[in-house]
Every structure is written in C-alpha cells, then in structure tokens.
C-alpha cells in the first residue's frame, strides 16, 4: 500500500514536471505569440476584485486578439499568475510570470501585492502596468512600474471634500484593517485633508480576520460621526455593510474604489444605508463597452460567476480593459513585443480608453484628475452616478 502510494506520488510529480516543460515548449515553438502577464489575485481576500479586473482584460483580448508588429501578426496570449492577495505569495507568482516569458505585466488589484511583486519585474526588466493599485509607493522607487489609475492621495482628497460639501461633515470615523497598506494609507491621507479643513477624524482599525463590526459601528454612532469612511477590502466591506444594515445605521458611508463591487452592492440592496464610493468608471461612460462587456459576461457561465453572478459592470473591469489596450498601444508604438523596447516606449504612450485619457508622468503614474462618485440605489440594486469630481490636481501634486 505504502509503496503503491510512493510510486503514484512520484509518478504525479514526474507527470507534472513534464506538463510544465511541455507547456513551455509549445509556446516557444509558435514563434508568433506575444505574452501578456496577468498578475492578479484569484484567491484570497481580494479575489473578487481581481477576477473582475481579469474579466476586462479577457474581454479586451477577445476583441483584439492579435497585434501586427513589423509586418508580422502576433497572437496575444494572456498568462495568469495568481498572487493569492498576499504579499508573501506575490513574489513567486511574479517570478512564475517572468519565467513564462511575458513581455509586459498587467495588475495587480491591491497595492500591497503589486509592491511585493514589483522588484521581481524590475529585476527581470519587464515593465508592469498597474491597473487599480492606488498606493503611491507602487510606482515610487520602481521605475518599471506604471499605472493607469489615480492615486490614494487624490482619492482621499476627493472623498474628504465630498464629505464636507455634501454632508457638511465635521466628524469622520475611519475604519480600516490593521496592517493593510491600502486601508491605512487612504485613512492617513483622508485625515490630512479632512483635518486641514478643520474637521475631526477618528481613526480606528480592526485586526485581520475580524468579523464583529457591530462594536465598531456602535462606537462610530456613539462618538457622533457624521460620515463613516471604510476603505477596506471587499470581504470586510460586505461584512460591515450587512451588520450596519441590521443595526439600521443612518450615518452615510464613504468607500474607496474597492467598495465599487457588486458583492457590496448586493449586500446593501434592500437596506436603508447610504453608501458613496469613489471610482474610476461609471456604467454609461462608454455605451459600446457597456453593451459589449455585458454580452461577454452573460455569454459564459464562468465569466458570470467571476462577476459575482450578475452583469453589473465594475469599474475595475473597465480599467482592466483599458490596461490591455495601453499595453497593445505600447507594442504598436514600439513596433515590437520586446520587454526592453516596451519599457523604453511606455513613458511616452498615450491612450484614450473607456475610463478617460491615459498618459504617464515622470514617476510612471497616470495623469488623472477625475474621479466618479457614485451611490448605491438600495431599492433597485444599482449604482447611480452622484457627481464627477475633478479634484484639485495641485493638491495631489503638493503631496509629493
């Protein structure tokens, strides 16, 4: 029995090794393939967001699966590296992409994993295009990382101003996960802006894996918060929204781009909560894209499952879509699929996507001054555009 298992195990290992080398070999032989690495979480806390971002890339890939460079047509292939939403798995996921021979990397959803994977791309000389990683430190200090979204200081600025304008808020309760770079970064920036304008910020954090948010929300209520700012990952957001709904909390919630997710929307539907999120794209921004992606999502059960079972378009999907075309644009402009050529050309690439115009500044960040703020229509279960904030771009500049 034992021996049989030993043999079986050994056989499995050998087989898998063969499979590895076989898959490597196949793509090598087809010389007309350009690989784009998709560095996204499809497991862990941020899996939900990562999958939606991938969806945009897959749709874009299905629309334009080929690129012509130097008179030759190349097939564009997406190679996936699951970073598991965790900073300790990210480096090996990144190096699996590197060893697959990708020429450019897209992703990741989540800033922490992007920062953890970044050095691997830098080491290998592969440019990476961040899609929705909003933390300033993703691109700062890594010349190979670019990004097409706005930054956290801009986002926090927009939200803080919105809170003061719309609700005349004096006290803001901020709740984030302990030890999460994204949450704590946004809260810190929000605090800077809100306090500079004379408001009071109560910053609080919960330990990782926490599920009891009732105590925190009760406290927010008792400490007299006018708004509650929760820039947390989706799983926690769902938990917070559900518990707030059962408490019948009347304080409006502010959320960052992570909360623009249909899991959150589903959780809030049917309650009396007020939720406002800042995001990159609002459904209706590009009719053609909206119709196309909905058809794509409804066309396959897997895509539908990845999108959480319905066809509400997440902003990250639109961003994933745009990121793919930015990469393609760079290839066309460089007339090459070579990583070094792409790296050289990327700073000068400009592209107008469904989420707006994209150009990079000297750090590699997108020059963006528009954020959409949308609110959840809790009766109909849809997002409604609240306002478009063209934040003071100068405020974002002075932060640096």
């Amino acid at each position, binding site marked *: 029995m034992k021996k049989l298992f030993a043999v079986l195990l050994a056989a499995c290992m050998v087989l898998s090794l063969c499979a590895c080398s076989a898959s490597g070999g196949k793509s090598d032989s087809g010389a007309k393939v350009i690989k784009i690495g998709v560095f996204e979480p499809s497991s862990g806390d941020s899996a939900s967001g990562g999958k939606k971002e991938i969806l945009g890339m897959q749709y874009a890939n299905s629309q334009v699966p080929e690129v012509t460079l130097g008179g030759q047509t190349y097939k564009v292939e997406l190679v996936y590296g699951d970073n598991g939403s965790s900073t300790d798995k990210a480096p090996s996921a990144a190096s699996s992409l590197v060893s697959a021979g990708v020429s450019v990397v897209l992703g990741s959803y989540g800033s922490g994993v992007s920062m953890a994977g970044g050095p691997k791309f830098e080491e290998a000389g592969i440019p990476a295009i961040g899609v929705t990683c909003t933390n300033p430190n993703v691109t700062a200090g890594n010349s190979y990382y670019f990004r097409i979204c706005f930054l956290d200081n801009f986002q926090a600025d927009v939200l803080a101003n919105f809170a003061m304008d719309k609700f005349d808020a004096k006290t803001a309760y901020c709740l984030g996960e302990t030890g999460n770079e994204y949450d704590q970064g946004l809260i810190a920036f929000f605090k800077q802006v809100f306090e500079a304008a004379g408001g009071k910020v109560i910053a609080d954090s919960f330990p990782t894996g926490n599920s*009891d948010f009732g105590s925190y929300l009760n*406290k927010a209520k008792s400490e007299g918060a006018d708004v509650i700012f929760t820039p947390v990952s989706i799983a926690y957001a769902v938990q917070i929204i559900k518990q707030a709904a059962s408490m019948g909390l009347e304080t409006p919630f502010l959320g960052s781009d992570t909360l623009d997710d249909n899991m959150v929307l589903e959780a809030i539907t049917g309650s009396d909560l007020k939720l406002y999120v800042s995001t990159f794209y609002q459904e209706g921004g590009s009719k053609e894209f909206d119709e196309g992606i909905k058809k794509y999502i409804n066309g396959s059960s897997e895509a539908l499952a990845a999108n959480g079972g319905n066809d509400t378009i997440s902003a990250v999907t639109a961003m994933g879509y745009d990121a793919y075309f930015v990469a393609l644009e760079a290839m066309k402009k460089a007339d090459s699929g070579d990583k070094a050529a792409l790296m050289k050309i990327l700073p000068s690439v400009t592209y107008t996507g469904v989420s707006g115009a994209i150009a990079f500044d000297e750090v590699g960040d997108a020059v963006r001054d528009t954020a959409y703020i949308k609110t959840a229509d809790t009766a109909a279960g849809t997002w409604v555009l609240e306002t478009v904030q063209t934040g003071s771009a100068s405020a974002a500049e002075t932060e640096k």
Partner: protein
Amino acid sequence: MEQLLSAEYIVSILLSGISLGGQLALIAIGYTMVYGILRLINFAHGDVFMVAGLLGIYISAALPMYIAIPVVIALTIGLGFFIERAAYKPLREAPRMSVMISAIGVSYLLQNTATYITGGQPMTYPAIDALTRTVSIAGASTKLVVIITPILVVVLIVLLTTLINHTKIGMAMRAVSKDFETSRLMGIKINNVISMTFVIGSGLAVVGSILYFTTYPAITPTAGAMPGLKSFVAAVFGGIGSIPGAVIGAFLIGICETIIKGLPSSWNVSVFSDAFTFALLIVILTCKPTGLFGEKATDKV
C-alpha cells in the same frame, strides 16, 4: 468619550460580547472534548465550522429553511465523523505530532477546497427570520439571535453534561479521557467513543455556525480560522479537557474582546483585541499552567 458612557452603548457592547462568547463556547466544546479524549488539538475544527456555514448557504438556496437546517446539521456531523475516520483513526498508534499535522492537513484541505468552490468570493449567509428579528433591550436595539445565543448555549450544555454524567456512552467517554489504555482493556469500544466525541463536537459547531454567521453574515474560506483559534484559546484558558472551563473561557474572551473593541477610538487600542486575548491567556497560564480548571497531569505521552 462621554457619549461612550451612555447606558445604551454599554448594554449593546455587553450584549454582543455575551453573544460572541456563546458562539465561541459552542466551538470550544468541540476542541476541549477531542483534546480530553485524544490529546489532539483538532486544528480542523474551525474549518468544519466554516464548512457548516457554506453548506448553510448552498443548501438553503435549494431547500426551505426548516428542511435546510437539519440537512446542514446532518451533513456537518457526517463530515466530522468522516474526518476522524479518514485522517485521525489511521494514526492512532503514531506519535502525537503526526496526528496534529494530519489535523493541520485537513484544515488546509477544507480551506483550499472552499476557496476552489467559492472562487474566493465572500458568500452571504441567508437571513433566518426567527433569529434576525430586532428587539430592544434597555434602549439598545439588537437582533434576537443575540438574546437566543446564551440561552441556547446553556440549554445545550445542560444536555451535554447530562449525557456525559448519566448515560453509558458518557461514562465511557469519561473513562477514556481518564485513561485511554486501561479503558480499552476494560472492553470499551474506543473507536465508538471517539466517533461520538466528533459527532457531538461537530453538532455543536453547526449550531455555533448558524448563530455566528447570522450575526456576522459574510463567509470567506478563512472565516473559520480566527473563531477557531479563539475558541481553542478559550478551551486552553479554562483548562483544556474541561467542558465548563471551555464555556467560561469562551464567554470571558468574547466579552473582553468586545469591550476592547468598544473602547474609545482615541485610545487607539482596538487593534489589540486579538492580541489581548492571547496576552490574557499567557498571564493565566503562567499563574496556573494548566488553565483555570485543568487537571494537574495532562501529559500522558
């Protein structure tokens, strides 16, 4: 700060603490019973609790609630039984460390399978009408589940202690946990007793999961890890192997934790709600190395 001293706020904090404690108690009993008999930290117990939650979601989507709940209970008990037979029984004669590793392996397997099936997306637990109704106590409005939990815990524990103290299988359990080898020589069917322990443990875990996930409705594949760890701490706290110890430990931990979370934000300490649980544990252990109600001689290797 002053606002936090209002009666309404204090009551609401205490209520959620008691309810959390009750839910942890139901999981902690599973830990402590298995430990009492097998001297095994059953790391997979927290994940069985998570699986029970997921089963609840999937099954209640297909069947009406009053059928779904018994089905979920039956399936989870089956799972607990199966885990013991498949992963622990073959290692009865192996070193204790191997059995514990097997438990960690099962925990991995359950978590990874759950990730695979759910795709890592948070799932929302269905609302059970009887539990989610809102009631008001001393001005603090709360869900009915918060009131029901401690009552249900007390009822279940009374039943359990009756079972252990006044039935044949209960006597066998006590005998086995006192002395494994001798009770085997005395003709007690060890395997039946152990299976029964797992059945009871899993059964209580399901009840715990229904109460817990009704209060905190989003389930991720790692949702069982933290409550699992905390109830284990609760079990150690009370002296592992002792059922009343585990229950008292769980309530203590639940209440302490919610109080810390409820302290003024300006103190900046709510980050330490989990850490405090462990700190308290270490203090207790250094004063009383076998927990509050632990037996003196626990090491039987």
